[in-house]
């Protein structure tokens, strides 16, 4: 049962291209190539980079690194003789005092969204990897990981941090802490995870 080739379907399921509605037979997973729609050329499967192990590794790394990044110094600030390390938690608490909704929105897109996505991915993929039947609610959880992806904005946050450091260059001297570099790693991990995650293959395995 764990082999991808011996799926319990009697025939390859019919799918419709998400972009142009072309009716297609879903190719067997073992082919591994990057499949494109013959009509509109939209990418249908992730291709040779598809790797459940890769996605699981990325999800574990995201949880561990994000957990650490919240409590390690993000910026070191010095202005008017004061010098202090600030973690993201400090920043969120400070911003939350007078910019509540903004702080909550930022916390949601840089921490809650990537963290919850990683947990949901593990919940869906680990049983599949072990050749067990899908966990209860796995389909809902996997849909969540897809829908939450655009709202996980770690890579955009990094650019925002760099721009704000340039803006305050004259007013305070700000150094980058370990947590900033962890965020850079998280953006890289998200990039690899996107490449390794083939939605169509996972849906096929979920049945």
């Amino acid at each position, binding site marked *: 049962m764990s082999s991808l080739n011996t799926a319990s379907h009697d025939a390859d399921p019919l799918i419709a291209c998400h972009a142009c509605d072309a009716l297609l037979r879903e190719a067997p997973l073992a082919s591994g190539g990057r499949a494109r729609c013959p009509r509109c050329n939209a990418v249908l499967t992730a291709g040779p980079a598809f790797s459940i192990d890769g996605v699981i590794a990325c999800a574990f790394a995201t949880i561990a690194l994000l957990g650490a990044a919240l409590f390690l110094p993000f910026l070191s600030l010095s202005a008017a003789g004061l010098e202090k390390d600030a973690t993201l938690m400090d920043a969120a608490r400070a911003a939350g005092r007078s910019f509540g909704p903004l702080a909550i929105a930022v916390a949601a897109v840089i921490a809650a969204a990537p963290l919850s996505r990683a947990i949901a991915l593990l919940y869906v993929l680990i049983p599949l990897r072990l050749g067990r039947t899908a966990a209860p609610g796995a389909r809902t959880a996997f849909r969540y990981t897809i829908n939450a992806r*655009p709202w996980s904005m770690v890579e955009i946050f990094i650019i925002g941090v760099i721009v704000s450091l340039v803006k305050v260059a004259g007013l305070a001297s700000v150094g980058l802490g370990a947590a900033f570099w962890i965020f850079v790693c998280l953006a890289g991990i998200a990039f690899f995870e996107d490449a390794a995650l083939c939605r169509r293959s996972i849906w096929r395995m979920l049945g």
Partner: protein
Amino acid sequence: MSMDAASPPPKVRTARSVGLKGCRSCGRAMPVAATRCTRCGVRMPAGARLGLDAVWAWLIAGIILYIPANLYPMLLTGRFGQTNGSTIIGGVFELIGYGSYAIAAIIFFASVVIPIGKFWVIAHLAVMVRRRANNPNRDPHNALLLYEIVEFIGRWSMIDVFVVAVLAALIQMGYLSTVTAGPAAAFFAVSVAATMLAARAFDPRLIWDGAETGQNRDSQGMQRGTS
């Protein structure tokens, strides 16, 4: 350029032409009457295509919110007892003044070019699919590419919101006592989110329905020579 004649686009049946519809979540072909996908369990909207109502609703909300996002200040700077607000564009000119041309270009692109480009492209696509009958020869590949670019790039507009959030946090920690966040940050963030939802609400299959008609015409023998 001349390869088109050698490799005509393959004739592919659409799901709709045989009474099916593809699940937007997992791709599985389901009967048009289905209300829930049997594979991924997502609720499926009635009919073979999504309408444009949600696209226009999110798009108009995004455009309306983008106006106060530009009129109100993103950042308020206090100096000598006076409060000066800097709008999105004002912030760009400030950065040019500091000589930070690259950063000014990033902010201008993320906060002005991308949002306005998105408004234009989504409106253009929504109008185009309604008028598709008048343009049977329009290449749907280009329209699809345009749609994919808009869907991919939209989130990057949030850069300026993060800038305000980081500065706001620095202020509260007592390092930049002269700067506070302005109301435009909220308008801008919600405007960007609304256009992200507008792009997601758009059904790219509508782009190809026009091509379907053109294909049928060709298959009925209306072959025309290349002009």
